[in-house]
């Protein structure tokens, strides 16, 4: 009912990701400067891009929630941000591993790209506790939407500020010259981005349908037990429909 088309999406995601990783290891040449370690790039960068886009998408859904007041948009915003946080954790860990291999350090505190991404991550790390702290469901949804919009607007601003920075150790990937990636590397990178985007959409749809089904079951339970007029009293960070 809620998970329509999820199987096809999952298969497409799996095929694209396996294809991308096969290209990474069996087709794309090693980078001249970094050698084999640069293979982390095809995982780390798409994950970072999709995570940041996920935060922005969460903000867009939150705008829809404030416009329509429909709880489904709050749920969509919550799920998009949740999946983006998971990908952001992956980005930080893989980035740290790459930094250790390429630069000899797990983390560089004077590097704007790394620190700005950490700030964005920490900002969104407060989203779920903030929701949990508000008991009233309507107020929770409203405040969470305002948070998602403001934080979502901060993401591109932060990105632009980092791009403007001159003090960069971290390489630039997306620029007007295509990131100086040769054709085969660029193709692999684009397929990896498509795969990661599909993974985001699959996990998003999976979690959304699970939450919708759970809400449906809870509502049926309340109806069958005869207390369907009673409000949901259990405190939770997740929205209810």
């Amino acid at each position, binding site marked *: 009912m809620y998970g329509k088309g999820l199987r096809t999406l999952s298969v497409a995601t799996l095929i694209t990701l396996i294809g991308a990783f096969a290209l990474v290891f069996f087709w794309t040449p090693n980078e001249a*400067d970094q050698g084999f370690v640069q293979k982390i790039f095809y*995982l780390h960068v798409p994950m970072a891009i999709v995570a940041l886009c996920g935060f922005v998408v969460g903000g867009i859904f939150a705008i829809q929630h404030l416009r329509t007041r429909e709880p489904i948009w709050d749920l969509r915003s919550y799920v998009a941000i949740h999946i983006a946080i998971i990908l952001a954790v*992956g980005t930080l860990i893989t980035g740290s591993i790459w930094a250790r291999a390429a630069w000899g350090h797990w983390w560089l505190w004077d590097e704007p790209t790394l620190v700005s991404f950490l700030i964005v991550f920490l900002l969104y790390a407060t989203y779920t506790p903030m929701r949990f702290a508000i008991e009233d469901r309507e107020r929770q949804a409203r405040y969470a939407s305002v948070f998602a919009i403001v934080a979502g607007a901060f993401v591109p601003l932060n990105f632009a500020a980092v791009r403007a920075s001159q003090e960069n150790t971290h390489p630039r990937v997306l620029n007007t010259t295509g990131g*100086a990636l040769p054709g085969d590397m660029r193709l692999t990178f684009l397929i990896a981005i498509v795969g990661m985007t599909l*993974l985001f959409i699959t996990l998003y749809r999976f979690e959304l349908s699970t939450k919708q089904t759970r809400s449906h079951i809870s509502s049926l339970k309340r109806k069958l*037990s005869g207390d369907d007029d009673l409000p949901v009293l259990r405190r939770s960070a997740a929205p209810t429909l």
Partner: protein
Amino acid sequence: MPALPFGAPALPLDEAGKYVAAAYLVFFAIVILYVAIMAARVSRMERDLAELDALVPDREDDDADTPAARVGVVE
């Protein structure tokens, strides 16, 4: 790409392989962990559905005790 800091040369394959494997393993571990948590939630929903199933026959029994049903019994 800009030059690497600290003039670090490319790591040999046996050294670099560890880091590349670690990064990809972290990714797979995150996805598998997520799927495992979602699987646990799905099994909890299955239990809830079983509870709902148990409630439905109860209501059917209750329906049998309604005035309409009792009229049917008298007839």
